[in-house]
């Protein structure tokens, strides 16, 4: 148990208390539902409501992506567990300005069931809610629509949030999210499990010196278990899967994210980025922009993922849109 928490069953409440205190200029919890983080930077113009969410334990995902020109609300579940329907619904009630709302979250069975129930509750009151589930994790299924959402989430969130900030209507905002999702591919590797605060234990055991290619952000098993290899070889393998799946050709431009899962040193992440850039530039693929750091974690899991977004002018404009969110430059 290498965690600094109090009661393992109270971590979400305490996390949210700390987070909202630390960022009281940006966010607050709904008075009547402490599982909904709402932006204080919404202003009073009418726009499509951007609602993101999922289980806790991925910080800064999802809560830090609430703010100006980003999400209007984040719905917060228990650790590694989708939020329940009521906060999904309460988020809609809180941020809808009459133009409807867009739910965006990683594609997991639990999230789909709960957010769908929230959307049904909103529909009963005549509020329109659309949904885009994010499916960037290349290796999680052959069928794109069955894939999981991992760190690529943040590009989909940002594209849709920018579209909403520009004043577009719900169908266009949804289309922006879908477009970003279709352009985004990720693949990860883990060198350890994360520690569940409720049990103080690892989700699964992993031998020191092993790695799992393709492991999910909740510790779902991946492609295969292997001995840790040099960073460059690991990058080459991950990029191999991504580029096989993604039509990125010489002359194309990408937004690159090297995302730490929580326990991997930033040093290693830059070493990884170095190799990603080498491989892409060998192939003539241009890095338009990049992010290197812990943007979507699995608590203390040691590992990282690589995300490539294939860009066109529309996506560039959306992903360049200025934002102001807690602690993150994006």
């Amino acid at each position, binding site marked *: 148990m290498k965690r600094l928490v109090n009661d393992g069953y109270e971590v979400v409440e305490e996390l949210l208390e700390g987070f909202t205190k630390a960022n009281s200029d940006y966010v607050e919890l709904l008075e009547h539902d402490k599982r909904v983080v709402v932006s204080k930077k919404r202003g009073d113009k009418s726009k499509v409501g951007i609602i993101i969410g999922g289980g806790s334990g991925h910080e800064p995902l999802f809560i830090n992506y609430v703010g100006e020109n980003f999400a209007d609300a984040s719905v917060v579940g228990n650790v590694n*567990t989708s939020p329940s329907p009521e906060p999904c619904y309460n988020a809609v009630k809180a941020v809808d300005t009459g133009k409807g709302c867009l739910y965006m979250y990683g594609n997991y069975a*639990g999230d789909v069931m709960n957010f769908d129930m929230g959307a049904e509750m909103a529909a009963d009151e005549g509020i329109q809610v659309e949904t885009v589930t994010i499916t960037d994790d290349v290796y999680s299924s052959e069928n794109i629509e069955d894939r999981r959402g991992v760190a690529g989430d943040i590009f989909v969130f940002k594209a849709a949030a920018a579209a909403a900030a520009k004043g577009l209507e719900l169908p266009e905002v949804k289309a922006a999210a879908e477009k970003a999702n279709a352009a985004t591919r990720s693949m990860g590797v883990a060198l350890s499990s994360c520690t569940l605060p409720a049990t103080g234990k690892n989700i699964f055991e992993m031998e020191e010196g092993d790695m799992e290619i393709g492991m999910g952000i909740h*510790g779902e098993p991946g492609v295969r278990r292997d001995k840790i290899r040099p960073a460059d070889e690991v990058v080459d393998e991950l990029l191999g899967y991504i580029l096989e799946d993604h039509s990125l050709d010489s002359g194309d431009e990408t937004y690159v994210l090297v995302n730490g899962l929580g326990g991997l040193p930033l040093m290693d992440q830059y070493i990884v980025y170095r190799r990603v850039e080498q491989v892409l530039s060998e192939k003539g693929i241009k890095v338009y922009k990049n992010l290197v750091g812990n943007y979507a974690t699995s608590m203390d899991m040691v590992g990282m993922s690589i995300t490539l977004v294939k860009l066109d002018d529309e996506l560039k404009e959306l992903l360049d849109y200025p934002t102001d969110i807690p602690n993150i430059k994006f």
Partner: protein
Amino acid sequence: MSTLVLDREYFINVFRDMLPFVDKESEHLQQLDSAIGDGDHGINLTIGFREVAKQLDTINENAADISTIFKKVGMLLLGKVGGSSGPLYGSFFMKAGKDVTGKNEVTFDEFCGMLLNGIESIQLRGKAELGDKTMIDAFLPGAEVLKQDSPEDPVEKFTAFVEAMKEGAESTIPLIAKKGRAMRLGERAIGHKDPGAESAWMMMEVFLKRLKEAASA
């Protein structure tokens, strides 16, 4: 047709037994979920039934009927758990209560009907089919037993129900998953029992234990 009648006390007792049951099995369920999921199935049930335990007296005091008790328990699970098992077990209990409005005791056959309603709602919510490696693989064989218009005594029938569910849970071991987190595992899911199928029959066994008491009373 059996003449056994179950009163609200029976159900309150069963719901009171749930937290100790979950506490006992939590680690076992976590281990199953670790192998093919995200390792939290036991935690999820603990979170849900802790809340049920906390509110059960109030629910009992305020509920007009058995229907309300089931609905409240279902709503607590739905509201507190999240994930897959929150909406699935939440719907199960909420829908199990739907046909017994106004009643403060139900016959054993009515009780079987309640469970069938609950099972139906899990199917509706999760859209899983037999063989997808989910709790449905436990519930559907159990439902077959419940539907049989058998002359047996309630305890025997309910024992057969739980047995069928347990076998259904065992039957998930060699399967490749088609729903839930394990879906992405492909062949690597083979050899592992589905955690939701396991918790499903075990939860029904909690009903069985109290049923034996009620029948012999």
